[in-house]
């Protein structure tokens, strides 16, 4: 088996508190992300999800342990430029990530700062615009866009860096249903084209789209497996104050009442075909 694209090895991370002392966000976490994988990370606020996302490209450096990205340790600050070309992060609020006054200039910001030739910048901007379907918005000021459109522009800005892995840190949390659909649609296409995806989310219905789900609780990995394996453990999830998607809850009720439901449906389509 090849080395993981991103490997978190025995990482402990604590934030300093204003009045002195520290608050521990992650305790001895180990986790590998394979190239091409789609991983969902779920857990409550304070579980360490966002800390993990920021460790993935060196925005945070572990206190103990190591994060290795494509063979490079994030401890080596001289490698950060290269590491951030491998792993790009999209945050919750698109407003925090947009820097320019026109959509296409915003998308060009990253590659221009790499000092790439104008032709190459142009090529990357075009490809990114196409990937997130914002062609008709390219000359618009970003502040006039809807939330979903802004978030797609933010994704395009990250894609223009040609990352092998894209981390979406609650990137759909503030969006309306259409905005969420747009962003998830883009995510699906990127994954199909070979990009590694790490989706940090509060929505169980988004987690089921992934190939693998990691549940964080109090700074530790509480569950790690396929969506089916993870959502089969309803009792454990409830102990963590989480729950299965509603569709799965209906199926589990039926099974408890003796109905012969095939497998563990996680989506509406799966449920319809799982009924006897």
């Amino acid at each position, binding site marked *: 088996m090849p080395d993981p694209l991103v490997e978190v090895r025995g990482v402990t991370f604590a934030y300093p508190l204003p009045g002195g002392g520290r608050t521990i966000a992650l305790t001895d976490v180990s986790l590998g992300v394979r190239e091409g994988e789609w991983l969902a990370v779920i857990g*409550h*606020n304070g579980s360490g999800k966002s800390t993990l996302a920021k460790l993935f490209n060196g925005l945070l450096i572990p206190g103990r342990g190591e994060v290795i990205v494509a063979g490079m340790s994030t401890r080596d600050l001289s490698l950060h430029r290269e590491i951030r070309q491998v792993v790009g992060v999209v945050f919750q609020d698109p407003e925090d990530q947009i820097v320019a006054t026109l959509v296409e200039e915003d998308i060009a910001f990253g590659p221009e700062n790499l000092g790439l030739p104008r032709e190459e910048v142009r090529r990357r901007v075009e490809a990114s615009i196409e990937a997130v379907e914002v062609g008709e918005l390219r000359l618009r000021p970003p502040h006039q866009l809807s939330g979903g459109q802004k978030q797609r522009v933010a994704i395009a800005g990250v894609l223009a860096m040609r990352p092998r892995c894209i981390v979406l840190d609650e990137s759909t949390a503030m969006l309306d249903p259409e905005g969420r659909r747009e962003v998830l649609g883009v995510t699906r296409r990127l994954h199909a084209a070979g990009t590694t995806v790490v989706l940090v989310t509060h929505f169980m219905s988004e987690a089921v789209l992934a190939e693998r789900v990691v549940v964080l609780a109090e700074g530790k990995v509480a569950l790690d497996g396929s969506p089916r394996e993870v959502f089969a453990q309803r009792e454990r999830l409830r102990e963590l104050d989480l729950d299965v*998607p*509603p*569709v799965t809850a*209906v199926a589990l009720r039926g099974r408890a009442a003796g*109905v012969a439901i095939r497998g563990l449906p996680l989506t*509406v389509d799966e*449920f319809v075909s799982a009924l006897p």
Partner: protein
Amino acid sequence: MSEKVVEIQDLWHWYLRGTPLQTVALQGAELEIQSDDLAAIMGHTGSGKSSLIQHLNGILRPHRGTVRVFGNDLADPKLDVRPLRRMVGLVFQQPEMQLFDPTVGDDVAFGPRQLGGTPEEVRRRVRTAMERVGLSFEGFKDRYTFGLSGGEMRRVALAGVLALEPRLLVLDEPTAGLDPRGRRQLLESLRTIHAEGEMAVVIVSHDMDVVAELARRVWVLAGGRTVMRGSVREIFARVEELRELGLGIPQVSELAYELRRAGRDVRADVLTADELAEALWTNSTSPAA
């Protein structure tokens, strides 16, 4: 006895009216709220939801049509909206961004102190408000505001509005960005507030699962108009129309709809996983076939 506290008919509002950039935000919107209502306003981004609720306490005034709130005619330019603002508590998106006092109790007390009540009266209001949102007065009044979790901070902000003891509480996207636990606690708070507070509660939300769990009556806006109204069950049974409007559907309603399309005999107006399981497997012919 319930009475009508909000009555909006044929409401029109334009932004940048009279300029070349004039755009219409509302074009014939309608809304009615009863004094004991627990209602939701849904609609796509840009449907006019925010413009509509800003008419409820006079932040916006109608350009055309009727807006009556607790008997006040908002179309009357001479109307003094200050008494209205005490009766209508508006909680904006991410209200925790507006907290400013380092101590929880003082932050919640800010409004009642402005109203000029006695210290005993202020204390009573703060205690009641905090307890309705599930923050014990003794346990939280001296806590450091900015050391709380996101969900707790949001409930502090809500308590600050409740301490003014409004008769109508309007919340814009109350659960956006909260984690599942914060979301559940906030919904419990809203149910308590509605049950004990003798006030009408209106949420604006595009989280359909929140609407399904909380609201009894639903108003749907699109393009500045009211396009659907009814009980929460009636509205979520109209899956195809909601989809056409680009709105989400609670997962349980969607599942019930797809099961009916696949030929199952399931009633359309189920809202929760338990109800759907019951509709599917109680009274059915042979469950464990």
